[in-house]
């Protein structure tokens, strides 16, 4: 039996998001055994993942405690860490998936691969020289492109599936739900429904997740208040406030309950109970990533409020028909690490209004035929499903992002003819960038040939290479080609200048070829100039 280890050293939301890939792998490779490596603090999110044979964990808090308290010998934390990893090594995994792709997971993957070269790595690892070794083109996309493009053209979920090479599984409950919780939630909500139901009228229960793990992603108190009012005003709908079992969330829910004379229903749920709760709701409105992922895994309709640092196109809800409301503001998505620099601060929280959310909800649950977007400054994205490619699409994505996506597809050899066209002005800008990149590449190629012969670097080569690299910072499809080239150049390790020149030549030739492909694509995807 083949054994696969998936390394995911991220938080709860990402642990749940991995259930899509795990389900797809289990379907595609039914005889394989799947294990997970997570941080101890994220372990509770693994309890309702399906079909995992073993959960390994790194107790980061303990290791940090040991390394910071002066009573422990310096080597103890390292020893404990090594024991954890060596236990994993001794299990004889055939495949390791570097899912979280952070520095720690990559170095652990590299250690496992170095110790046992027979291990097949999916994603990236580093060899002894420090070179980053991607398992395929999609591992490069995942490592070198997606993190550095603000409006990512590819969803993480799609990238994971393509990286592993398994088709996405649709419409399935992908987490296990405890029967006791399930019964409790079913009975409780049936009771609420029958109490509210009058004159044969069905009442739909709408979950509102009040808080997320990151305050940057939360919607404002006023928005929640107005949203509850709007839902209560609709006799066909009833709000269910969802909170996690923490005092601050209880207090927050209590605030709203007081405002509505203690008439609201508040459900306090841990992850396992939340999965059961979601399956019995008609829809959920959430700014929180864990709730969103769990709703996707339980096929619950979602209206996602996407504020803060998780870009919708990369990490948004993937339930077909779901709506993602993003603030129409240039700084979206913002950096998770930086403070808000906009005045007034966190204005994005006000741009997605209660009215927008309510209209989106009505559309999502089929009470409206149309929803063309927010009046208050929000931008809606609709999750659709593309049957030819097997993945989700976001209707409403800007043409530039779609163009970038079709370029990535072209590089991967995937034919896609549905990704729309580029407006003339944007196309012209892109054409100029391609021309500039092509010019620099030609100069660099000419110079590198002479370096390969003379063994002497030239200033012109350095300058043209620098210009190519500077394109990486631009928001253009050309930057995709130059970023791929940059990743390869950064991987060059030879001490020999002639060898380096030869390696650089190969990379530049590939870059030139990719720029040609991009030009071709641009010709196909440009809106013809209107003739007067």
């Amino acid at each position, binding site marked *: 039996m083949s054994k696969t280890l998936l390394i995911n050293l991220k938080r709860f939301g990402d642990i749940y998001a991995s259930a899509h890939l795990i389900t797809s792998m289990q379907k595609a490779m039914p005889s394989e055994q799947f294990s997970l490596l997570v941080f101890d603090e994220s372990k509770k999110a693994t309890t309702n993942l399906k079909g995992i044979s073993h959960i390994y964990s790194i107790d*980061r808090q303990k290791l940090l405690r040991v*390394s910071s308290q002066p*009573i422990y010998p*310096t080597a103890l934390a390292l020893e404990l*860490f090594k024991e954890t990893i060596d236990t994993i090594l001794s299990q004889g995994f055939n495949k390791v998936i570097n899912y979280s792709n952070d*520095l*720690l997971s990559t170095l652990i993957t590299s250690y496992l691969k170095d110790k046992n070269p027979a291990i097949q790595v999916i994603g990236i690892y580093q060899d002894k020289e420090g070179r980053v070794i991607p398992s395929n083109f999609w591992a490069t996309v995942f490592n*070198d492109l997606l993190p550095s493009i603000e409006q990512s053209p590819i969803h993480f979920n799609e990238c994971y599936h393509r990286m592993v090479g398994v088709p996405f599984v649709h419409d399935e409950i992908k987490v296990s739900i405890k029967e006791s919780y399930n019964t409790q939630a079913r009975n409780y909500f049936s009771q609420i429904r029958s109490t509210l139901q009058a004159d044969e009228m069905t009442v739909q229960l709408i979950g509102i997740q009040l808080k997320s793990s990151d305050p940057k992603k939360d919607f404002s108190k006023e928005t929640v208040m107005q949203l509850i009012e709007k839902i209560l005003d609709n006799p066909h709908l009833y709000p269910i406030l969802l909170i996690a079992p923490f005092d601050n969330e209880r207090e927050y829910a209590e605030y709203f309950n007081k405002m509505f004379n203690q008439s609201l229903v508040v459900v306090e749920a841990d992850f396992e109970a939340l999965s059961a709760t979601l399956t019995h709701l008609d829809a959920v409105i959430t700014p929180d990533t864990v709730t969103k992922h769990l709703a996707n895994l339980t096929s619950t309709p979602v209206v996602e409020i996407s504020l803060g640092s998780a870009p919708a196109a990369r990490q948004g809800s993937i339930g077909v028909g779901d709506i993602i409301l993003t603030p129409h503001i240039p700084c979206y998505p913002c950096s998770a690490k930086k403070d808000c620099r906009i005045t007034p601060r966190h204005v994005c929280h006000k741009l997605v209004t209660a009215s927008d959310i309510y209209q989106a909800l009505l559309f999502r649950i089929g009470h409206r035929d149309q929803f063309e977007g927010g009046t208050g400054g929000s931008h809606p994205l609709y999750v659709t499903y593309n049957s030819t490619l097997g993945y989700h699409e976001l209707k409403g994505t800007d043409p530039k992002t779609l163009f970038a996506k079709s370029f990535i597809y072209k590089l991967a050899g995937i034919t896609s003819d549905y990704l729309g066209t580029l407006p003339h002005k944007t196309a012209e800008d892109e054409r100029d960038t391609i021309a500039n990149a092509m010019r620099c590449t030609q100069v660099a190629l000419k110079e590198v040939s002479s370096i390969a012969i003379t063994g002497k670097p030239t200033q012109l080569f350095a300058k043209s290479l620098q210009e190519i690299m500077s394109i990486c910072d631009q928001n253009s499809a050309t930057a995709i080609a130059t970023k791929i080239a940059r990743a390869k150049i950064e991987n060059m390790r030879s001490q020999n200048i002639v060898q380096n020149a030869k390696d650089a030549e190969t990379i530049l030739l590939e870059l030139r070829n990719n720029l040609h492909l991009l030009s071709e694509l641009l010709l196909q995807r440009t809106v013809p100039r209107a003739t007067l």
Partner: protein
Amino acid sequence: MVGTEQRKTPRIELLTSKSGTSVPRISGVYLHSMLDPKKEAEEFAQRNLNAIKESSSVVILGLGCGHHILETLKVGQRFHRKFSLTVIEPYTELISYLSNDLRTLLREDLFSIFCPANPVELFSNRAFLEVLLNSPKVIPHRPSFDLHRDYFNRFLAYRIPENEWPVFKENLEQVFNTWPVKTSNDFLLKAFHALLNEESETGAIYE
């Protein structure tokens, strides 16, 4: 029982309390009540009930004849499915005065005794470090503690030499920044560095 270095023990007198149980006397100090050591042990466990309730791991400073150990074990097992009890005692000889019940429990690993000569010996012992990792509550057995005040205070004040961590971290930093790696273990050292510096939070690594 752990202890590598033999300590010089003064004469231990074994007396019998009014209730008929054994009470050791060392250098004139009675380690248990001469009236009813069992009752005293029950009071000991009651006095420390909160500590025992709060933590599934307890370290007791002083063994005596073990009356208080037996009671603490009983109470601890009532509150925790897995209760760990560790005793630190300078005099190895006291182990021979344990009751048969306690000897059985010791053999069954339901508690452990460490008799180190000094703190360095104790804090280099992996088994004891495993105990510490569970953040145990430390409870002094007052008569034993008073008898060995210096000994126990040295344990409580123990710190590794000040320059050890900076040197270790500096070496780790150097390995982290050095390519190519020499052995597989260097990957692990780099990973450990990333873990300590929480660089794993930063998302993708080679943007």
